[in-house]
């Protein structure tokens, strides 16, 4: 078995959700929480040093999958050609132990109803058998995904399998490389402190805010999408976390 995997470039993704739709389309999935490709958005920093992040994550097809070990019915298995982690729905009774075990929240459920069968990203093994790339990889307009034998990807990109907010990869060894956000270079250098000072004053209208501290500290709950959260308590939470906030 040659382990195949993904490389995801966080610098290219702009959360357009094309991958998520392509996956639903290819696999004939209904609208709703049975969404195998989750695209998470979160923001870091504040004016004028704001940064947006996006992570499109379907399943890590881990080298040592926690879900397969947790399933009491043996419904989860690693197939032997591409190393994809697949679920046999005939054996699944919807107990959700796989979800509890998976650090990434990859197992998906159409609803919160007990007994709902689990479904998940299949690595598009049906497409791979025809010599095609997975639907998500092929559909990305920014070419944020690369896909292939994991060893080749590691040689090309280096072996980094997590970004800030993701679980530590040594637990399960996801076959999912990540190109982390690059250091940003200002094209037109400016003095951030000066920008803040200029933004703050409004002539005879007074001050827009008191000082620079007001720009960085807020009551809890003021900003909602300020970190990556991959595990959720309900399908609604999952849908909110993977909704597009690019308007």
């Amino acid at each position: 078995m040659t382990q195949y995997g993904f490389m995801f470039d966080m610098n290219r993704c702009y959360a357009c959700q094309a991958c998520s739709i392509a996956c639903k389309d290819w696999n004939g999935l209904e609208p709703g929480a049975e969404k195998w490709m989750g695209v998470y958005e979160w923001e870091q920093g504040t004016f004028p040093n704001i940064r947006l992040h996006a992570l499109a994550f379907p399943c890590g097809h881990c080298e040592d999958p926690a879900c397969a070990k947790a399933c009491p019915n043996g419904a989860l298995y690693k197939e032997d050609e591409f190393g994809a982690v697949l679920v046999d729905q005939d054996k699944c009774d919807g107990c959700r132990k796989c979800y509890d075990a998976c650090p990434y929240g990859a197992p998906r459920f159409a609803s919160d109803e007990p007994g709902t069968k689990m479904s998940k990203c299949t690595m598009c093994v049906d497409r791979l058998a025809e010599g095609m790339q997975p639907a998500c990889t092929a559909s990305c307009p920014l070419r944020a995904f690369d896909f292939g034998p994991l060893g080749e990807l590691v040689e090309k990109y280096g072996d980094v399998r997590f970004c800030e907010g993701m679980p530590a990869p040594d637990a399960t060894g996801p076959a999912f490389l990540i190109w982390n956000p690059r250091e940003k270079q200002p094209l037109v250098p400016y003095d951030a402190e000066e920008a803040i000072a200029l933004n703050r004053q409004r002539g005879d209208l007074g001050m827009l805010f008191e000082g620079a501290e007001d720009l960085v500290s807020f009551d809890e709950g003021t900003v909602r999408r300020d970190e990556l959260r991959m595990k959720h308590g309900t399908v609604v939470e999952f849908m909110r976390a993977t909704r597009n906030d690019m308007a």
Partner: protein
Amino acid sequence: MPVLFNNNCLTEVLACQKDYWEGRMDESEFRHRIGSPTNDAPLPNVQMIIFENNYANNHSNVNKRFAGMASTEFNWGFQWHLNQPTAELCDIILPAPVWQFEGMDEYMYGHQRFVSGPNGMRNYFTFCARGVDFPGEVRSKEWVWTEIAKRLGDEVVQGYNPRLADVAWEDWVDAQEAIYREAFEEWADNETVMAYLGYDHRPTWEEFNANPVVRTEVDVPYYPFKTLMERGESPFGTPTGKIEFSSNFVKDHDMTETRWRGQIEPMPVWSPSYVEGDIGSASNDGFYNPKAKEYPLSLVSPVSIYRQHSSNDNNPFMREDCYRHAVWISGVDAQARGIKDGDLCRVSSDRGETVLTAYVTNRMMPGTAAVHHGAWYQTDGTAAEMNEYGQDLRGTPNILIDDGHLPHILGALITAGLVEVEKLADGDAEGFGLEAERGGMRGAKAALGLRAALGEGRE
């Protein structure tokens, strides 16, 4: 103050005409407010409007548009959705066809169905046959116009649509298609043209419909003005026949007496007049505008990826799971107002107001707000201080944005304005402010509910 474009012209006419005809506004000011090609062009007194689009909603100053629509004797039109804002003030509404797909009417305001490309060398044309028949009670618009022409008299209908004047409704679309077919047959009979186009035999109508794209090979690439330049003629209609960086026409004419009635420099000059803080010249969205005291946030209205202008705002799939229509506001401004992400807020300007969920994000610069373009004004009649027709439950930015013009001939800012945002209520755990945002066609539910309450039975 000049108007910018025809749509806004109508709004100004409706806002001013009563004052003019009743003697409260003089002619010169009326012409300047509404735009006027010459000083003796006839003056309007619009008492019936026919709407074929979402006029009431789709440009700035929705409240002013609604007031204008309410001031006429009678309005009617074609609308696609029962809850379209423009339908609110129509006395009669006919179900509108989806031009491109249904029937054989001309579409896109005058485009016939032999269509050539909008740009480039236009060395091809296509034929757009009917996609589907009209659903339900939808009828061809051209049939409606012809029926009206018939009632205006035989001379009128014979001048407007002689060939179809006596065609029964059941045969209408086939009769339209027959006219296109006539044109095709005459074209296909021309052996010279057919040979030039490379047809190896005269195509039948059916064959043409199966492959309705006709291309002409272009041996020599065309470039703009090629024909004229090869003849040694200037393509430019300027007094000098040259491209003029400083326009002689503008120098020699009083532009305040031309159609758009505004001032313009012969050569573009940037002059920051807005800094005077004079409401007459201050930009609608800038902090030098005196309105900024009460409405301190500068509003932008970006295009949404979930709509094409206002199309699909009624689509139940473009809700909740996909997209949360909201007022975007920065962390520091939200904090100052006690607003958390998901809270229900009232967004208001000196022109109107709306109720919206807050999306708190530091991508917004302090002092700014955003409400995305294309949402529909949807009301259930709940009273609102700034809206005569009720509170906006959906959140169109157009109800917040003024249509005031700067003295400059092209000076109207119709995409931005000044607003204030204040918290009304806590949001829910999922980050929604309005229970009614859930489950699809909230706007439709509100409008249909209101109609049912008024005793209008049909869905």
